[in-house]
């Protein structure tokens, strides 16, 4: 019976559900994982790179983290081809706003615009929803550093720390325990990076992964205004993985 309502995104099933939208959300739950963390001195986006083939040319810069504007970045879980349409849209909207008002677009407005666009694909006929979820990291003068999560239905929410993609629920429960543990305060970027790597280790299938499997990005407020974007180099990523491993061993020994 449910089959009858599967093919069309715009028709509710008798149970009041939109199956295509739910399937799209489900598809993302199998995609490469992305972790977002708000830190005391910045924001972290950490993603898992799926290395599909040894023969594939390695990506030069990033495959999951995309700059939207000078103060906004997102990382993708899901179909990157679908995502690139939305990323183009987000970049256009951000620049249009800058052109119109001479000031950077507030982060929540970019998120809202993109989510409105995503939502329209769950309502108008003949189209499938975007098969991707985003983590938006951004800065504006109203709310400072912000982290948002979006899904194919067009829902979005703001977070201190969150995970999207494969095994996101185990990643989230890990962060629930470890982020701001014992109310010790939210971590700084240095601690946050280790936490993000630990979180990715929990969600990834295999353990003991090389640095090419991780994509770590840090956003910090610059002194005198503006935002600094930094994608960590292979060496820096390796450094963090090693530290996490050491700490893991030390904890096991203790």
């Amino acid at each position, binding site marked *: 019976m449910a089959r009858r309502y599967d093919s069309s995104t715009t028709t509710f099933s008798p149970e009041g559900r939109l199956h295509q939208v739910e399937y799209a959300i489900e598809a993302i739950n199998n995609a490469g994982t992305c972790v977002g963390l708000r830190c005391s001195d910045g924001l972290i986006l950490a993603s898992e790179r799926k290395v599909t083939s040894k023969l594939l040319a390695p990506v030069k810069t990033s495959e999951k983290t995309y700059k939207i504007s000078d103060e906004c970045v997102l990382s993708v879980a899901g179909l990157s081809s679908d995502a690139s349409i939305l990323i183009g849209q987000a970049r256009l909207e951000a620049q249009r706003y800058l052109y*119109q*008002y*001479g*000031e950077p677009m*507030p982060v*929540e407005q970019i998120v809202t615009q993109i989510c409105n666009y995503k939502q329209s694909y769950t309502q108008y006929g003949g189209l499938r929803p975007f098969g991707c979820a985003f983590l938006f990291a951004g800065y504006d003068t*109203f709310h400072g550093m912000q982290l948002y999560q979006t899904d194919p239905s067009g829902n979005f929410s703001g977070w201190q720390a969150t995970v999207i993609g494969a095994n996101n629920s185990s990643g989230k429960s890990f962060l629930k325990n470890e982020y701001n543990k014992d109310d010790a305060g939210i971590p700084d970027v240095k601690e946050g990076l280790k936490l993000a790597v630990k979180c990715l280790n929990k969600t990834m299938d295999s353990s003991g992964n090389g640095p090419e499997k991780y994509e770590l990005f840090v956003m910090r407020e610059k002194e005198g205004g503006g935002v600094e974007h930094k994608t960590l180099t292979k060496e820096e990523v390796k450094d963090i993985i090693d530290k996490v491993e050491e700490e893991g061993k030390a904890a096991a020994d203790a």
Partner: protein
Amino acid sequence: MDSIIGVKYNGGVVIAADSNNARSILVYQHNLDKISQIAPNAILGLSGPNADLVSFSEYISKNLKLYSLSNPGQDLSTKAIASFCRNTLAVALRKGPYQVQTLLGGWDVSPSTEDGEGSMYFLDYMGSLQKVNYGIQGYASNFALSVLDREWREGLTKEEAIKIIDNCINVLDTRFLISQPTFTIKSASKDGVKVEREVVAKYGVERNN
């Protein structure tokens, strides 16, 4: 023929405008308010044909209202409002230009401190935008800009700023051929927009006979 005078002071901006509504050789009314409140903390002094003043200030203020309803808690800064006005004028320029020369004054809460800052922008109908400490639109600039050049300084109080505007009006009364018997004055500061001098109609002049 309109005179718009603006002065920034420590804590806000005052803008003055004559209250004549005139076209060609005819004065239609003597109590027109040419300073429009376009946002909770921003005022726009306009010079130009009455129709354009009304349609431009309404277009801007209604769009700002729409923005604040769609994005609560993220009100546009004076700089952003100025930029929006500039864009509106620049787009209109190639279609049906708004014939407006404006001074925009506003007050912004600075995000880092509890305090805020006033700022003023000078806009012409072609969409050129200038951040200024003081400015005049209209023929009045030929007479009174030198007064502002001499008397404006950093750290004025509101009273001092209004005094400077009165000095400008004095020069206009003495040397400007066109009669502008009354001026309205408004301020934008942390207390919002305040009317410093009401619109009043004053007909004719006192004769010596």
